[in-house]
């Protein structure tokens, strides 16, 4: 009986030792992975900060203004605003003009000397 208990104890000791070793090994590995991921996250965060600043640098308003002006864009002028209804009528009038055979007359609804541009994208 006592021998059996002893044997069992020895087996238990060896077994728990092995289990402990395996567990410890696993823990190490997981810890390493966590550390690696933390390092990665830190690096990515740092990259993100740099990219964000770089983006802000590239999108700085004075540069955008310079580039926009080079493209021939400029701030919206008062006469470039049209009511949607009026823009629609202008379009119809222009269509009618284009389908006519005789000389193209100016759309009657647009004030003389104005350039009816219904595009507000040049605002900024």
């Amino acid at each position, binding site marked *: 009986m006592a021998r059996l208990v002893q044997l069992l104890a020895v087996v238990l000791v060896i077994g728990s030792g092995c289990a402990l070793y395996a567990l410890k090994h696993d823990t190490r590995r997981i810890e390493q992975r966590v550390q690696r991921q933390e390092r990665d996250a*830190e690096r990515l965060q740092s990259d993100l900060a740099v990219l964000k600043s770089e983006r802000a640098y590239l999108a700085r308003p004075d540069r955008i203004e310079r580039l926009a002006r080079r493209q021939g864009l400029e701030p919206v002028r008062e006469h470039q605003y049209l009511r949607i209804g009026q823009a629609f009528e202008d379009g119809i009038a222009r269509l009618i003009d284009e389908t006519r055979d005789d000389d193209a007359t100016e759309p009657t609804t647009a004030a003389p000397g104005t350039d009816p541009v219904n595009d507000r994208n040049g605002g900024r």
Partner: protein
Amino acid sequence: MRFANARSAPPALDMGSLSRSRLMLVAGVLAVGLAAIAGQILRLSLVRGESGGLHAAEPVARTFARPDIVDRDGHVIAADVGAPSLYADPSILLDVDEAVEKLVTSLPTLDAATLRKSLSDRTRRFAWIKRHLTPVEAQRVHELGLPGLAFQREPKRVYPLGTLLGHVVGRVDVDNRGVAGLERHVDETLGLEPVIGAGSSTRPPVRTTIDLGIQQALASELDAGLARYRAKAAMGLVMDVETGAILGSASLPSVDPNHIGPDDLDSIDRVQGGVYELGSIFKTITVAMGLDQGIATLAKTYDVTRPIVRDGYTIRDPHPVGRPMTVREIFLRSSNVGAGSIALEAGVPRQQMFLARLGLTGAMRTEAGPVAQPLVPGRWQELEAVTISYGHGLAVTPIQFVAAAATLLNGGYRVAPHYLEQASVPSRERIVSPETSDAIREIMRLNVTTAIGTGRRADVAGYRVGGKTGTAEMPGPKGYARKAVIASFLAAFPMDAPRYVTLVSLVEPQPAEGTRGQITASLNAAPVTANLIERIAPVLGVLPRRLNAVAVVEPEHP
């Protein structure tokens, strides 16, 4: 195993209870010791890493992570990036002289003497050499291959916009602590966030009321005005009349918070750091005082044919009309004698009270720091009442003046100028009556639309601009100088229900093409304002009048 040995021992020893109890004692001590060892092994293998201890090589230098600062649409104004900082461990440095020589060659901004001193102390384990190196500099130092040098990544503040908001945003010190402007305010209200290494802030960005589009339009139009009229300096402000939110604030020449030189430390934010006698734009305040105190109406006439004489000084109009004028005409023709007559009728105590209520004689602060204290005359008698009525003798900051003007334009409520988005809307405190506000709107608009008005060049088709000019002679060593002026234009739009108020001031403008040799505000500050409003009104969602029936479309902020 040892237990087994202990158990197997007794048959060999049969000497009685004394030796047996000794044996038990030894076995017990052994058992306790083994248990302790087992426990320690368990603890080390299972909870390893927590205690860790100090890594001997890690420097214990602290820096601070800062939250980003963004504009009202979330565009970055200031941010932290990681930058390598160079330090040395003097105790393992091989040859100090060689190290100093090589370092100074690679990093020319270093001072050889101080560097040698800090590296010569062999008892030290840590000494900064240079903070925040550029990648190129770091590579050069790396290639030196000197032992005892190492890098640590630290947060470094960058301002991608350069000079665009230089004064307002302020600056940080080498440890990334805010020392001026909004940066300082952030530290004072949100506290410091110490980090080791290049940790970035976990805090949400600080949102300002600045609109980068407006700011750019303001800065570039001021810049154009500065060049065109060869002015020494310029300042401008765009403010929401209801809330006091500042959408744009510029002071030229500007500073770049990325590169603060010794000269930049003296450069003040003229919008809130400099006090000026702003001249005739103050007549807006004087007329409002007359109306609000029940002294005058817009139709009341004053005799402005004779100059005002007080204490031996004579106040006259540069271009006298030679007949009595109504209050409306006094404003439109910008008559000093007329404004002075209103102030004299109100009296000194009432004038002092009214200016104090508008916040023009007291202290003020914004998130960008304290506003310069107004220069209130020590002696404030009738003569001073007259000069103050047309903007001389009382020097205030532009931001304080614009806040007072916003009150006159928004229906009469106090506004507190601010740069950061506010969580709650403060309760509205009435300063002047809505009727006074209506009258001010009317005459400011008239000043731009009528032939006799001084603000005609500020008109922009469709946006209903109203405004007042002011050309103030600057005080010099020999009294007021006629050729050195501050030309200002106070404007608001759309005038039927003002939403934004602007101020453009040029310091010492010179005659230019189209000004016929003049340096008055109506010929320089007014057209600059017109260019500004033409650019910002569409961005701010202010539509031309003929489209008013259509719902206002909020413009997209890219």
